[in-house]
Each structure stands twice: as C-alpha cells, then as structure tokens.
C-alpha cells in the first residue's frame, strides 16, 4: 500500500498487528509498542516503550506521541459508545482497505 500524497510505501498491516518491523514508517515498531502499552494500561510495557521512544526520537516526540495516543483513546470510545456509523463517502473509499485489513471484525455496532 502506498501513501498517495508522499509516494512512500507503508505496510498498513502494522496498524492491526504489533510486529518488530517499522512497515516503512520511521520508528513504526517502537511507536506501536508505545501505543500498545498505553491502550492496554500495561505500565511496565509503556515504560519500556517510552524509554525507547525517548532514546530514538527524543522527549518531545514521546510527549507528542503520547498525546495522539491519548486522543485516540477518546475518539474510539465516543464512536463506540454512541454507535455512529461510517460516513457513506468514507465507507466507499475504504472498502478495499477494510477488507484487506480485516476491519469488519470490529463492526459490532448493529447488534
């Protein structure tokens, strides 16, 4: 899969799976571990990942990464608690991607 705007090649399956590979994204693997630790509320995992992020990317990057992860602890909860559907345009645009990444497994809202 490629980034349409940057022309870079990204392995978007890294979004769904935690692997020790960057997937074409600089520091993708350590950022993934950082997200896992925070979302899973695993303090030890978070601390270990935080240390790596600081060592490789700097403290400011760690803070900004934590901020994004925190925000995306909010948006998914708001979406899932209120049962909002995908917008039609977004559903159409992402049909292939959702199938490729197996995202329909998360679609429990109509039950």
């Amino acid at each position: 899969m490629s980034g349409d705007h940057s022309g870079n090649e990204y392995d978007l399956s890294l979004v769904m799976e935690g692997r020790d590979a960057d997937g074409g994204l600089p520091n993708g693997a350590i950022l993934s571990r950082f997200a896992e630790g925070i979302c899973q509320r695993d303090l030890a995992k978070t601390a270990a990942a935080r240390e790596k992020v600081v060592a490789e990317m700097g403290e400011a990057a760690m803070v900004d990464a934590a901020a994004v992860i925190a925000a995306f602890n909010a948006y998914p909860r708001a979406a899932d608690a209120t049962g909002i559907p995908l917008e039609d345009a977004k559903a159409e645009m992402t049909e292939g991607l959702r199938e490729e990444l197996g995202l329909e497994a998360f679609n429990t809202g109509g039950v």
Partner: protein
Amino acid sequence: MSDPFADLPASTRDDIRAALPVARRRLAETGTWLTGAQRVAIAAEVRQAWDCALCKERKATLSPYGVSGEHDTLGELPAAWIDIIHPLTTDSGRLTKSWYEGVRDAGVGEDEFVEIVSVAIVAVTMDSFCVGVGIEPPDWPEPVAGEPKRVRAEEATPGPGWVSTIAPENVRANMADFYANESYFYIRRSLTLVPDELPKFWDLMTPFYMSDPRIEELGDLQRAISRGQIEFLAARASALLGCYY
C-alpha cells in the same frame, strides 16, 4: 495551591500544559445534567474500572455479554451508570446497541448518557496521557456545588448513531463555529446532544491531536513527530481498542 501537573516532561508543548488543568477543573464543575459530585464520581469510577475483576474476566473472553456478575465499584453511582462506565473504559470496542438499549431501559436518560460518556472519556484521555508520559495521574478535584439546569437541546434529532445529535444544519448560536472547517464527520457530531460538554471534550482533544485533520502535512503545527507517525498512532490506538469507525 500545588500544580497537579508539575511533573510533566520539560518538552511538553504549551498548549497541552494549558489544556490539562482546565480539563481537570471542568470535570468537577456542575454539568448540564449531572452535579459536580456525580462527575467526579464518574472520573473516579473510570480509574476503578481497570481493577474490576468482572471487567477483566469479560475482556479475556470472546463473548463478554455471556459473563455475568457484579462490578467492583466505589459504591457512589447507580448500577446502570457503572454498566456504562466500566465497559466504556475497559472494552469499548465491543459495546453494542443492545448494551446501549439495556442502560436506557435501566433508567438512564439519553442526555444523561451522553454527559456520563463525555465525562468518562475525558477522564480516560487525561489518564492515558499521564500513563504515556510517565507521571502519576493527579487526584480528581473537589466537586463544585451547584444544581444542573437539566434542559434538553431541542434542536437535536435522532441519529446518525444510537443517540440524538445536533446536525450541522440545526446548530444555534451556542454552537456557531462547532462545525467549522467542514468538520461534519460523525465523530464530531457524536456527543452534541449536550452542547455545554463540547468545549470540555474538544478543548482537550485539539492540542492532543489537531483542530483540522484535513491537512496533508503539518504546516504551521508544531509537532516533534511526522504527519505519517501521527496518523499511524491514531490508527494503531483505534485498532487496539477494536474501534470500527
């Protein structure tokens, strides 16, 4: 008065430093439907949820709704509110319409539901950030006394999800700029049934993420990570939480 966020890393951006104490203070203020005391109790219950044995058991199973039992709570809130707060905190990706209808049938009003959800999410978000940067989440503040006005936003209409929302074409003066920048995405609309909660939620989210996600590159945004890394983290966190949207 000591600064509850005094231990933030030195390189924390100014907009984040400014947003956190405001969000914390607003949690304890009288809401539209809930008292300050109820709101602080919700925030406290969010923290309690991570230690709840029932939540842990449900999280570990393929079928959470097949596991019955009582939540480990702080004992301050009605059971129906706990049935919102705990799964929202620990297993939000498997919330269903049946779950929503269940808490409504148990007596939670639609407007109350939205305010409970909004308060709980702000608490989770603040704590997630503190966990991420490695500081102890501060105590929740003392609640502010006062009675909620309990006035429904009559301009709200059903949908697009399970709760009523205020559509872009129906906004009133109190939400005049809310849908600016063509921000008509449903996530932006999801909690609009209680308009006074919106700044309490979005004033925290904007410095954490960004105000206009339409931008392709960072532009004037000051970030120490790239646009690609930001969107990767957004997608990874959403996937970890099992969020379809």
